[in-house]
């Protein structure tokens, strides 16, 4: 009788553990629509923060979801991932916003002003945001 109870408890624990493990393994990517925005600013403001002090900016924005407003300098549509580049005062560099396949439903035009949410991944030449979503339009 006692052994049977212990076995049942063990079995339940294993099943629950298995479900938690499986859910954890398959947990979804971050949902930027429901997540709280950690910073709202212009493309120039984010770019300047990185120009002034990259490691400080990384501490503040790396892996954070930011909402950026700016003017589109360049549109690069690909079958898989597409990117938009937002203008800054720097002639050579800006903010690159990468969209997952299918995330860019209406393709905006160069020169258009947009607000984009994305996860900040740091700066190479440009500051790069991934998994972006367009918030206006």
């Amino acid at each position, binding site marked *: 009788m006692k052994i049977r109870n212990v076995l049942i408890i063990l079995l339940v624990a294993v099943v629950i553990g298995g479900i938690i493990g499986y859910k*954890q*393994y*398959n*947990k*979804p*990517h*971050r949902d930027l629509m429901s997540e709280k925005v950690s910073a709202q600013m212009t493309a120039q403001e984010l770019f300047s923060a990185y120009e002034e002090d990259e490691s400080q900016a*990384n501490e503040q924005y*790396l*892996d954070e979801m930011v909402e950026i407003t700016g003017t589109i300098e360049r549109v*690069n549509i*690909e079958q*898989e*991932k597409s*990117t938009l*580049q937002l203008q800054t005062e720097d002639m050579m560099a800006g903010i*690159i916003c*990468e969209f*997952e396949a299918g995330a860019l439903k209406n393709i905006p035009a160069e020169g258009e002003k947009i607000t984009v949410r994305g*996860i900040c*991944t*740091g*700066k*190479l*030449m*440009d500051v*790069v945001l*991934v*998994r972006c979503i367009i918030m206006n339009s």
Partner: protein
Amino acid sequence: MKTIIISGIFILIGSISTVEAQKYFTREAQVSFFSEAPMEKIEAHNGTGTCVVDFSQQRMEFAVLIKAFQFEKALMQEHFNENYMESHKFPKATFKGQIIEPENIEMKPEAQDVQVKGTMTIHGVEREITAPGKILFTGDKVSVSSTFVVAVKDYEIEIPAVVRENIAKEVEITVEANLEPLK
């Protein structure tokens, strides 16, 4: 006389433009990696790499942000960033190198095999590597590609014993970039 002058001007313009188009650049280099262990296949893509190639010196540079690698499974992406690559500490991976073969690359419109040698920096660790690649000039653009293998332990990336079966010791990296002349 006129024709000589005109053709002279054309030759001059031609030579100026070829001199100009020595540096090529992209901010949308595609970098992927792939590993297959007995338990699990791991694959990730990054579409925001920068690449500069200077053909006058046969030099080439790549850079990617580690956090910009996208995995199918969010958990794998988390482990990759937090446990293995420590991307908060080492946000970038870079390669700086030289095309060593052929010694003088011709800008011709057919695929050429090249060998590139240089310094790869991943996880804050620098290593000398040599990798094979392909270069193709089409119109005013150039595309470069390469596939090579890196050993995880070369870059001091530690894999805990419990998951050692799930993660391959070697990872195949593929790079593809379409570059435009740098103005």
